[in-house]
């Protein structure tokens, strides 16, 4: 388990955990969504790191090239990126509506306004 061999994975995990931390610890709804984005993008880094082949090149056939990186993780992550942005968009639409109805986008203030009714 060398440093160079696993550095990618460790940093990806660190980024994932930072994003996860932002989601669960912050009360501001937009910050939560940013954290969620961070979390999912870091998972992509993990997947793509799995697919890299040392000495290989992009998986597009070129004359004279014999070693290619694995195309399958790329396909999966292309789909996952799109799913991620779709979720962010829906989340942001909900945040805008929440702000219109409650006047705030901080979780604890929203809870207060719900309980006071």
């Amino acid at each position: 388990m060398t440093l160079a061999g696993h550095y990618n994975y460790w940093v990806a995990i660190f980024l994932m955990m930072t994003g996860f931390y932002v989601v669960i610890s912050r009360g501001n709804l937009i910050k939560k969504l940013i954290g969620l984005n961070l979390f999912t993008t870091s998972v992509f880094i993990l997947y793509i790191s799995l697919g890299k082949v040392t000495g290989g090149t992009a998986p597009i056939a070129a004359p004279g090239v014999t070693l290619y990186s694995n195309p399958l993780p790329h396909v999966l992550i292309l789909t996952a990126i799109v799913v991620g942005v779709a979720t962010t968009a829906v989340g942001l639409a909900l945040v805008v509506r929440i702000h219109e109805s409650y006047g705030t986008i901080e979780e604890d203030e929203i809870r207060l306004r719900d309980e006071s009714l």
Partner: protein
Amino acid sequence: MELLIDIVLLTFLAITALAISHVRKLFCAIMLASIFSLLCACLFVTMDAVDVAFTEAAVGTGIAGILMLGALRLTETREKRPPHQPWLALLVVCTTGAVLIYGTADLPAYGDPAAPIHQHVAPRYISQSQQEVGPPNFVTSVLASYRGFDTLGETLVIFTAGVSVVALLGFRSLRQFLRNRRRPSVMADHLVLRIVAKMFIPLILLFALYVQFHGDYGPGGGFQAGVIFASALILYTLTYGLAKALQVLPPRILYLLAAGGVLLYGGTGWLCVLRGGHFLDYRALASDPLVGQHLGILLIEAGVGMTVFAVMVLMFFAFSSRKEPQS
């Protein structure tokens, strides 16, 4: 050398992530998030994932950033200071991280060509996809043909996001906008912006067309092209105002394009069935299987491009037409 770039980029990513966590001005957080996406895109290039880098830059940096700024304009710009230290959250995060590190201890070293994932399914894609499907870009072959059904699901996801945003936000102030046609856009006075935009928009559209059709031979394809098309229209809207943009492309045409893209994709699959093949089996589309594959991929990428373009513009219009809160 490559390893050095990799390490530097990853370190920058870590610093950006920590900054996002710390910063309380939401505008800064959004900008940092876009920087994070861009750094990820660069990282993907060093890891040979060129299609993914392209999509991450277009979608993650561009669209996500724009939508977040659109939401920010309609809500507040500062985050409140958290009242207490979130120890429980820290504990959960550290536990999860520890479990992950334990789990990734057994992963093959980065770049190892003998890893299990390079031995089993991928070699056929690399060695045979050109004879079976055609395009030199293996990612396009897998995306559009081998795993084409996943891409149909993905197109439907984008469509769902568009429908959801429109259902939640709607175009309530549309009529008001159209009535105030005489009210000029804020940016309309900026001569430099108008002229440069006028020069750039056709070039952007041309580039988008290029990306759409060149996806077989290089990085690109329907998603990236759709996003770039949308960005041309967004630039137009930013410079000339929402009212004009809505006249150029009214929402009902966008609905038609969005639904039409998904139906084109599904319809191509259906056509394959009618011609005696399986669903999404493009070999049935023509007498020569490779020609059939080429035709099938062309049609579905067009469908994807249409839906992505229409949905991105719909979402942007929905956010822009929402009334700003009275402070």
